[in-house]
């Protein structure tokens, strides 16, 4: 496990989260090295999606959310005074469970929307659109219809468009919250291939309920669990190989082998 911690690009230290009075996460310590794919697995309600959102401060949109601990992006605490949520989210992109392209914009406008929304200048728009769509492996399908409405695409295409939209921002980290749970096996496979390619240039954190998917795409895996009436936390964290084939904790063993959850 020690050999994984090399050039960490994202590191969570003692992250605890409360929604109002209720604590949902307790003392999460995880390291996401550069160019590695990390899978977060665990039963529903264990706090893994909430944890994912703390990595780009999206959890703050929920009223009453509070956080203790720190998240370091290149040794800079994203919750420090010097950082604001907007600049964090520019560096840490996010893909949601349900494809959410902007319905009033064309495919091209969707790709460029991130730059416009964050108030940055667009240099060579056409080149950026093509590069982003290619990286999300959807360029060949949409290159002749870039000015069509984004919602005219199929669900799987919409999700890859959303990935391309995040990539256009050139993020350092990409967070994915069950990106394939609403998609068919074909689209899922294409997105998994995309994830492997993207890992060459960024670190990726993916929440998934699909054990096979976690094994296929990730280098390391964290197993989250919330005991009855207790806040969620990490039970086991290590290389994917180890978590699935030789888990140390009995609960991890039960979960990855389908005995509960």
């Amino acid at each position, binding site marked *: 496990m020690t050999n994984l911690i090399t050039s960490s690009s994202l590191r969570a230290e003692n992250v605890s989260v409360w929604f109002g009075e209720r604590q949902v996460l307790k003392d999460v310590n995880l390291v996401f090295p550069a160019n590695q794919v990390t899978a977060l697995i665990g039963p529903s309600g264990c706090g893994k999606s909430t944890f994912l959102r703390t990595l780009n401060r*999206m959890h703050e949109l929920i009223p009453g959310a509070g956080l203790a601990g720190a998240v370091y992006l290149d040794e800079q605490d994203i919750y420090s005074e010097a950082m604001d949520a907007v600049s964090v989210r520019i560096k840490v*992109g996010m893909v949601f469970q349900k494809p959410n392209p*902007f319905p009033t914009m064309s495919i091209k406008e969707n790709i460029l929307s991130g730059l416009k929304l964050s108030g940055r200048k667009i240099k060579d728009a056409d080149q950026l659109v093509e590069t982003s769509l290619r990286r999300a492996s959807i360029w060949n399908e949409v290159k002749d219809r870039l000015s069509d409405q984004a919602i*005219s695409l199929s669900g799987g295409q919409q999700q890859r468009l959303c990935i391309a939209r995040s990539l256009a921002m050139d993020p350092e980290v990409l967070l994915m919250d069950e990106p394939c749970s609403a998609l068919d096996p074909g689209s899922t496979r294409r997105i998994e291939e995309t994830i492997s390619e993207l890992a060459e240039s960024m670190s990726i954190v993916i929440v998934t309920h699909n054990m096979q998917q976690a094994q296929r795409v990730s280098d390391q895996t964290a197993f989250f669990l919330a005991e009855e009436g207790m806040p969620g936390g990490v039970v086991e964290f290590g290389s994917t190989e180890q978590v699935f084939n030789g888990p140390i904790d009995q609960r991890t063993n039960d979960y990855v082998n389908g005995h509960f959850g």
Partner: protein
Amino acid sequence: MAKALANQPWRKANVARRLQIFVASLIPLPLVVLITITAHLNPILSFAGLFLPLQLIAASVVGYLAYGRRGVGDAVLVVLTFFFSAFVLILLLSVLSSVVIQGSRAISWQFISQNNVYVSPTTSLDYGGVGHAVVGTLLVVLLTTIAAVPLGLAMAIYLTQSQSKTRNLVRTFTQALSGLPSVVSGLFILSIIEATHIGRSGFTGALALFPLMLPTVARVAEEALKLVPVDLRYAALALGAPNYRAFFQVILPAAKSGLLTALLLGLARVVGETAPLILTMNPSSSTSLNPFNGGMTTLPTYIYNYLASSYETSQARAWGAALVLLILVGFLFGLARVLGKNKSIKSKASK
């Protein structure tokens, strides 16, 4: 038939049952008409009290014979649906047609463009018109809209986008305000006029319309903004958008057609208002372009003044003005729809 099936592989919906019941429901019609004429009954009363029950019985019998007990329920619902749809349609058409028929006697280009100066109750319809009232209506409604739409939109944004604790209070007051009788709004502004000695003008009229338009715009706009999925807002924020950019570039365009509806319903709420304007504006016969000083007439107050007259030409002018108001509203609505046409509608339809 076989050929048609080859061209159209889908199966037609079965309309035979509804058609049977519909035809059956029309069987008592000649009988009812005969009774109404011979007994000199009130036609509306005889249709509601005689035709509807007979219709229900006839259709139920046919439904029962054809399909058993389930046919009765089906027949009752079909008859009620047709009867009340027809009832509402006839009401609407009769209002429209009486305005068009009565109004077309007075209407001409000169009636729309000329004003009311030197027009007495007996002046022939060839002279004078409602041009001044058209201008007055447009100016007063424009003034009201300029104030009420931005503020109503701001209220809707506050109610949907913020997490402030006073939202429910604001929402309750908005709902209370939407129940405000228009004459009370007029009386309120009238008391301000009396207390401050500001002169009556188009502006004071617009002030009286403002509390009527504001809650309509705010509430409809709130519903429109609520319909925008929260996913879109999250998507925008996750891309590093500040709240205001997420709102203006993503949420606002997505809610565009609903917000346009808010504007139109707001316009519809005030464009025909009479009572508050009678209280807060001095009528004028000449065309006035200054809403801040002097008298000004709007179409509804013009109609009110002329309809009360016993002279036939005056009444014809009132009907003409009603038709002009109808056309004006139709024109404003059409204009708003064209200007606000959502380009995504096309691709949605073609999908």
